[in-house]
């Protein structure tokens, strides 16, 4: 009896949470007619917004991974003064409201910001540009790239890396031939999470780069101007696109297309 009760409790608690996540999505999907979805799909404004979101989220995922992996490697493998502080800084974007993040980014990347002003002279502007969207997305999603890769590096057996060093591999060769292939799945998972977080970002983006409108901004505008039904169609379209790319990336991260996870024969 006791053996059956505990799994049942797990299922009930898990089911409540799953229902909580699925019900609003179900509400959104059922509120959308096939016709409304077709209209949204052919609407150029929505098409551009969805494409912009996918594109910028993908760029953000690449940048977050390229910059996040070295930091993750340092955090996983080195003990240095201020280690805990660096980890706290990495986690900071997770703890602050995204509108606050947007305002903070304005101080740095806005037209008169610390970096925004000097860079504007070179022609690179962040306010109301695609670069601004990427900056906002990167700020809020970078912790996912760093933390996921850090966990992957921490899970590596240090003796495997030491074995490579004893066989004549330099630190760079050890990283490229051993650490990176073994941590690749975790790194890719981080990239997927960055992509997912970026494509859904609204708060920071709307403050730093209201135009060009990403999908969440366009859907919000549609909600204000045309009402719930039209915005729901666009929202379902974004949901489908995000889900499709998410599934593809998750499949990659699960291993069968990852170089580091190729299986020598048993």
């Amino acid at each position, binding site marked *: 009896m006791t053996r059956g009760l505990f799994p049942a409790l797990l299922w009930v608690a898990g089911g409540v949470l799953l229902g909580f996540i699925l019900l609003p999505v179900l509400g959104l999907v059922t509120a959308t007619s096939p016709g409304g979805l077709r209209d949204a799909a052919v609407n150029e404004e929505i098409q551009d917004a969805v494409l912009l979101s996918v594109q910028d989220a993908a760029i953000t995922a690449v940048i977050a991974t390229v910059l996040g992996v070295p930091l993750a490697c340092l955090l996983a493998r080195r003990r240095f003064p201020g280690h805990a502080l660096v980890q706290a800084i990495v986690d900071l974007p997770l703890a602050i409201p995204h509108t606050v993040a947007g305002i903070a980014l304005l101080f740095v990347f806005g037209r008169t910001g610390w970096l925004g002003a000097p860079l504007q002279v070179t022609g690179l502007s962040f306010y109301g540009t695609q670069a601004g969207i990427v900056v906002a997305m990167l700020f809020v999603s970078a912790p996912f790239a760093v933390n996921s890769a850090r966990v992957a590096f921490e899970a590596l057996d240090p003796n495997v890396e*030491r*074995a490579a060093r*004893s*066989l004549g*591999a330099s*630190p760079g060769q050890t990283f490229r031939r051993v650490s990176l292939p073994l941590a690749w799945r975790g790194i890719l998972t981080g990239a997927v999470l960055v992509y997912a977080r970026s494509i859904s970002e609204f708060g920071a983006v709307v403050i730093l780069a209201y135009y060009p409108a990403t999908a969440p901004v366009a859907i919000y505008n549609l909600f204000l101007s045309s009402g719930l039904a039209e915005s729901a169609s666009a929202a379902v379209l974004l949901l489908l696109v995000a889900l499709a790319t998410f599934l593809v990336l998750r499949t990659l991260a699960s291993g069968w297309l990852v170089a*580091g996870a190729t299986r*020598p*024969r*048993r």
Partner: protein
Amino acid sequence: MLTVSDLLTRAGSFQLGPLNLTVAAGRVLVVLGPSGAGKSMLLDTIAGFRTPRHGRVRLDGQDITGLPADLRRIGVVFQDAALFPHLSVRDNVGFALALRGHRRSPKVGELLARFGIAHLARRAPRSLSGGERQRVALARALAARPAALLLDEPLSALDQPVREELREVLRATLRDLAVPAIHVTHDRDEALRLADDLAILDAGALRQTGPAAELTRRPTDAATARLLGWTALGPARQDTGGLLVGDLPIEATVLGNGATRGTVYYRPEEVLLGGPDRRSSPALRARAQVLEVVRTVPLARVVLGTTPPLTALVLHRDLDELNGEVEVTVPREALRLIEPATPLRKVTVELPKNHRAGGTSSEGD
């Protein structure tokens, strides 16, 4: 030749050394010590994975203390084999050669054949047994043509039959390799099978070093004696009639190492029951009741009613003759009087006069 001089390493409150070691080319030094003695730390420091507080490591005359691990030409075989899980057996063995651009070197095939793992070439490390993994690790280390080899308890995670089989493979390999090799273990049998020289490490300090046979016969340190199979009988005291341990009289003159106080140690497998062996002169004689017989293998343990109690290890076929009271003798070479523990790192090292230069040596500091 691999030389370690005045090496001192710290990790938290644990200190290893300062210690000195020399291992000549073609000789195998086995560092024997209990868990937590600092054995792996010693290898880590020699391999370049850990920076010493002070001291030098020299290989073939070159000071390699400041060199990174990849430039030291020191092969390491780890307890868990530490194979690259994303590479096949062949690619593991060929790793060092691939780094130098020799991706299809015939050397890999030779090593696979030599260690009997050619049929596993395309397999993944996770599908191998413990013994197979260590064979791959050994082949991988040798492929890099190391100038010295460090073995960090490579057999300790294996089952007994596999361990014994691989021990012989290892012994033959080390004989052929002709480079200095340091093998660390907590297993006495393994140590004595592989060692040319022994170094006893306990609590971060080198207690005694020298040729394996010499240390086994004549330990001068309590930790060394215990690790090499000697059993403490008890503290010795001077009496008008000579040396006593409890009620047992000891022929002090035949103990032979000049000590006058300390603890007497004996080898239980050398304790004779039922009369002395004519070939040896006993240092201890007594008559005692057989208190208990424990049928351990390969030798049974016979606990005797002496004060303090002696334990004898005897063949099972001789157990039937042990009834009631028996005559007990311990030959002189099976008794040692070991002085109270000298302060750590102040160990006087006993080396035989004919111990050839280039073997293992150690100095107190």
